[in-house]
């Protein structure tokens, strides 16, 4: 159960190797979370979580939506009520590669969007039944206004962001909550070799913002916060200008 000061007891991380995901889990454990379930494609490679009383590993394939429900139930069986569920799986991929291999693009979108839809719905079902708990959806500013430079990835995030908002409204009043997180460019393994965009952040900074959002019960978290104002402008830029955005 989440306590009065926002500390939680149990966490399910899907995509057990995600830097952002693990950074969130680390902070939640530091704040008192005792039980962690890490679900990933290859549980053997999952890094240790320091300080948690219980860490459970599950096998999980983001690209197989028919298995997502079982993963959520298996996690609940291991640790009881799930206080926070964080689907943190996804692939970035370059636009050039997708242009060259449209099938790969479709597969990436199936994970980045479709995978989150099935996982999000299964997770929300569980949280509704419990009458409490938060689903953390890692969206991106890439989906707030999709850019030419990464429109395959951006369009999946746009879909995900819309899905998460709709889901949040759908579960309103059930005790379950959905928190949408919109980081900008995150410097980390996923973006290795790319030059950071303005207002970029680290996985640790994203995690700090997520934990603060969980405490305050925020519905949307921008990381850094300044991106919110920036994208209020970006969203209304004329198409002719937007098209010329370098990246």
């Amino acid at each position, binding site marked *: *159960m989440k306590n009065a*000061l926002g500390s939680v007891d149990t966490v399910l991380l899907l995509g057990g190797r995600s830097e952002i995901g693990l950074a969130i889990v680390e902070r939640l454990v530091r704040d008192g979370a005792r039980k962690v379930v890490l679900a990933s494609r290859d549980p053997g490679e999952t890094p240790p979580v320091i300080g948690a009383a219980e860490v459970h590993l599950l096998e999980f394939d983001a690209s197989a939506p028919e298995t997502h429900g079982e993963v959520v139930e298996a996690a609940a069986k291991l640790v009881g009520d799930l206080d926070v569920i964080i689907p943190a799986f996804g692939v970035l991929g370059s636009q050039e590669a997708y242009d060259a291999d449209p099938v790969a693009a479709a597969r990436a979108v199936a994970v980045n969007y479709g995978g989150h839809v099935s996982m999000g719905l299964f997770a929300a079902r569980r949280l509704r039944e419990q009458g409490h708990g938060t689903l953390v959806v890692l969206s991106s500013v890439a989906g707030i206004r999709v850019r030419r430079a990464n429109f395959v990835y951006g369009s999946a995030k746009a879909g995900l962001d819309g899905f998460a908002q709709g889901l949040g409204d759908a579960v309103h009043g059930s005790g379950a909550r959905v928190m949408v997180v919109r980081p900008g460019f995150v410097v980390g393994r996923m973006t290795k070799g790319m030059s950071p965009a303005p207002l970029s952040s680290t996985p640790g900074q994203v995690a700090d913002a997520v934990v603060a959002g969980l405490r305050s019960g925020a519905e949307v978290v921008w990381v850094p916060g300044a991106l919110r104002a920036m994208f209020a402008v970006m969203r209304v830029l004329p198409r002719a200008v937007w098209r010329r955005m370098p990246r």
Partner: protein
Amino acid sequence: MTLLTGWGRTAPTVARVARPRSSEEVAELVRRASERGVVPRGLGRAYGDAAQNAGGLVLDCTGLTTWSLDESTGLVTAGAGISLHDLMTALVSKGWFVPVTPGTRHVTVGGAVAADVHGKNHHVDSSFGAHVRSLTLVTADGGSRTVTPADELFWATVGGMGLTGVIVEAVFQCVPIETSRVRVDVERTRDLDHTLETMTATDDRYRYTVAWIDLLASGARLGRSVLTRGDHASRAELPRGTEPLAFAPRTRLKAPPWAPNGLLNPLTVRAFNEAWYRKSRPATGLIQEIGPFFHPLDFVEGWNRVYGSNGFVQYQFVVPFGQEATLRRIVSRLSAEGVVSFLTVLKRFGPGTPGMLSFPMPGWTLALDIPAGRVGLARLLREFDEWVMEAGGRLYLAKDSRMSAQALATMYPRLDEWRKIRDEADQGGVFRSDLARRLAL
């Protein structure tokens, strides 16, 4: 489906709420419980998540209001859902008073037993459970069982936070009173040591005592307090023409339905504390009504809303006599941190009851409320938990909304004993609450 919180208005969860009107209806609802279980709820005055049950069933027991008084002995048989307020309204005019009342009259008899509540007379009369002669429970199988202080289940239920069965009726001993007034002495103390000395030396002269501490006073005035102590007044002490057993408490103010977060800040609370300290002029033999003396906060309806949407946490601990250093350490730290606590109350406890999860023990108890939005509060309170544990003390479950399961196990050494009895009484785990989940009870 209803969103529920405790009095502190933190950590809301959703549950189905049913309002049974009889113990038969309670039994039927318990029998039909889903795997998310059932927990009884009274007037929602526990500060944390004790009367919440996310995804499950919450029994609003305020419909169980039958009661009777044996006027020759003062034994009251009361439905679990009747409030101490309603009981007082009926009993005081007949010359009887409840054995123990907490700082609010708006708690139910069931809640008073489940939390084993204490009042200003703890040093003399112990807690509510000490005055209960029998309890009737609806058990996990939907059956009915009456237990007395000779039964283990009785002492697992007193202080058991509603997790051993649904209390539907309690029989308890009331105390005779000549008047509905209290003869009160008010004293101001210079600092914490002076407060402790005065209470130690002279508390036993009074049936009811409490100290309000100005936490924002610092330096030499750290721990300065207003001691309010009194006894039921006799008829001879009342001014002529006073109706001796009149009891008509009024709520005079209503808190606004919303208040901004941060309305209670160091500035406003310091001003309030200063005013309170100055207003409390030393006096002896003041004649006060029951309401203002026992339940000053009931004067403002819905005062918990003043803390804004973030809500607040109550931190109440007890440390045994001899561990005054821990009390001092916590008070200095609170003062140094400038922690905003609207009403900080210090009380000297007498002997506890045999309730396995009952809070009071001989020692000092300090209760404070703090806005939940305060930065760094979680860490500060965890640190206090450690100090309280080292001192052999504990936190009060009816107030708690944030402690850890590990801390609970250290603070309540009889937890396993309680669990064993609970497990026997409730083999299927029917009785569950958010508090029970959070603390792995």
